[in-house]
């Protein structure tokens, strides 16, 4: 090896190798979707399911003859749940694969990092992130959030606390953007209704004990603790509260709960813990289609991955919007139709084929998705239905819907 072997040579090598393999024969009218999902990294429990759901939904659209005659082509990448690799992956999708849309970015840090690139290239971005900045930077309505943001989580929590008759809530939050915003919006909603928060505390991730934090909060004698965290820390906190003999109840989000929490805590400790979460329309036709596709691709139930349902809905909503906008429409025109095919004033449809037929007949449609009714607010954030769950004698049971 000589010193003449410089980075320029290498770059040339990359260019040559890449241009040889990156020129697939693409039909002129295909609509290319970049599936940029957290297959590895912190989001890996959801990423594979999201990617496979996107591929399955695209196959469903293509089987129904494509969207406005355009076939959907999916190009998959791994965002590694991390901003820098995701930026490079997105750059590759945009510049090399020439995708028209990027679907299924999961964490806020990834979505925030690639948003400037998608906006600059007029590319539609559909994500499941909740950072408020994502929605304020979305002036041209090219971006759509399929996960109900912190605002809705906070309001659901406040509604549940009120309905359960608590008067002295305290707040405990994991130290990250999403968790802090959830309890922040809870506080806002609660205080706007004239309530008072007796104590608030942010705790650090990855501790082996949260006893001192708990004692601090319990000293304020709350009757309920709004705890916003993740499965590992929630498990520790609930167990230690039980050991301390705390009388306050807990209300936690569903992503930190579920069967896994019950398994870790057992029926005694989990008894009476309240859980709020979005509910997919399990009885709906769209969910059944999604669930069957999910089962086929991953051999587990689609109910375990709410983000999979959201990723599936992204493709169907996008395809319906393309269908409505027409084959020659550009992304701005297509994005404008997303709201028009899913908001409440149209005829309810639950699959792409059904929606396509209704659109052909000149009707207004309202796609009711697998993940929820998919009605978008003014920021482009889907508003889901929330419900309150609880653990009772070792069973995870749904109590009622939250309004």
């Amino acid at each position, binding site marked *: *090896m000589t*010193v003449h*072997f*410089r*980075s320029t040579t*290498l*770059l040339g*090598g*990359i*260019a040559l*190798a*890449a*241009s040889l*393999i*990156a020129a*697939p024969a693409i039909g002129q009218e295909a609509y290319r979707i970049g*599936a940029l999902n957290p*297959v*590895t990294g912190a989001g890996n429990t959801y*990423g*594979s399911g999201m*990617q*496979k759901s996107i*591929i399955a939904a695209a196959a469903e659209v293509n089987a129904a003859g494509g969207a406005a005659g355009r076939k959907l082509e*999916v190009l*998959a*990448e*791994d965002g*590694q749940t*991390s*901003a*820098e*690799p995701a*930026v*490079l*992956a997105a*750059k*590759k999708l*945009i*510049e*090399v694969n020439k995708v028209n849309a990027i679907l299924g970015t999961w964490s806020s*840090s990834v979505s*925030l*990092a690639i*948003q*400037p690139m998608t906006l*600059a*290239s007029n590319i539609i971005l559909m994500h499941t992130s909740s*950072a408020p*900045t994502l929605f304020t*930077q979305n002036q041209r309505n090219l971006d759509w959030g399929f996960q109900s943001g912190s605002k809705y989580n906070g309001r659901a929590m406040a509604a549940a606390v009120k309905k359960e008759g608590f008067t002295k809530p305290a707040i405990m939050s994991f*130290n*990250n*953007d999403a968790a*802090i915003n959830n309890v922040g919006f809870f506080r806002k909603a609660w205080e706007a209704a004239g309530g008072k928060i007796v104590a608030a505390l942010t705790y650090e991730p990855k501790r082996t004990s949260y006893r001192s934090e708990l004692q601090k909060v319990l000293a304020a004698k709350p009757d309920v603790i709004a705890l916003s965290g993740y499965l590992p820390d929630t498990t520790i906190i609930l167990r230690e509260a039980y050991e301390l003999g705390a009388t306050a109840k807990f209300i936690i989000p569903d992503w930190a709960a579920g069967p896994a929490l019950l398994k870790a805590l057992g029926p005694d400790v989990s008894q009476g813990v309240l859980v709020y979460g979005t509910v997919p329309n399990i009885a709906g036709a769209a969910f059944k289609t999604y669930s069957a596709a999910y089962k086929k691709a991953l051999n587990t139930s689609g109910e375990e991955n709410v983000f999979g349902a959201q990723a599936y809905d992204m493709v169907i909503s996008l395809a319906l919007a393309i269908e409505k906008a027409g084959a020659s429409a550009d992304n701005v025109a297509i994005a404008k139709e997303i709201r028009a095919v899913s908001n409440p004033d149209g005829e309810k449809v639950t699959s792409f084929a059904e929606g396509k037929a209704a659109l052909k007949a000149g009707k207004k449609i309202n796609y009711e998705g697998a993940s929820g009714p998919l009605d978008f607010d003014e920021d482009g954030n889907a508003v889901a239905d929330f419900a309150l769950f609880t653990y009772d004698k070792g069973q995870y049971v749904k109590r009622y819907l939250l309004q």
Partner: protein
Amino acid sequence: MLPYLVTIAIMIGIYGLLTLGLNLQYGYTGLINFGHVAFFAIGAYTSALISLAGYPIALGMAAGTVLAFLAAYPLGLLCLRLRADYLAIVTLSFSEIIRTVLISEEWLTEGTQGLPGIPKPFSSLSQGNADLAYLALVATAMLVAILLMWRLSHSPFGRLIRAVRDDEDAVRAVGKDPAQLKIKTLMLGAALAGLAGAFYAHYVGYISPDQFLPLVTFYAWIALIMGGAGTITGAIVGSSLLLFILEGSRFLRDVVPFVSEVQMASLRLAVIGLGLVLFMLYRPQGLIPDRSQS
């Protein structure tokens, strides 16, 4: 294709600057710095905050570089008492402390929310041209850094720091103070990392504490070891090779049959790991070995 290559080239430049800094510390002086990302983070946050406050980007970048340079001083004082492996632990902890500070000091850094919308230079140009101009800027910075490094390594100072690496007692015996030399190289290397951080922040446009994990430090180490420690060319070749492996593996999908998209993601990381292991087995001295050492 071209804009993607430009992006990769920019990242090579950024990692190249980072690796050059580490090369000065480890390759020339023998300091095992496992906390390089701390200075990268200081440069990124300083430059981002200053430009977000409305001051010119150039000022931000300069301030980021200077602050990283200064931040290495207290760490350098500590290093005086520490030998190789202890230094590694202290620097690693230092980088985690910096990250924790970035998370906790929300009034300044917005904590885990991070800083979105960091201004990019050349924003009056079209996106493609702006990226090209940015590449030119990064390449210029890199060239200047290489020239300085070359001058440095051929100066008496360069010979002295190599002597510190090879035999500290011998340096002391001829009446030189190894401690001062160590502090100086630590600070200079940190300044390069700070500059790399500033370039990173303004290119990616969004920074948050979770982008400054120790992984970045070890990427720089990988680049340095693959390229060959103790040579300037090695640092540059190493960072090119690192990006080539990281990014080139994305195109495996097109040539490997019978693998689904999801499996591909894991396979890709496995290929990266395997590549590094094979490299270490068959070329432990790096692509460009240091001829001054036999």
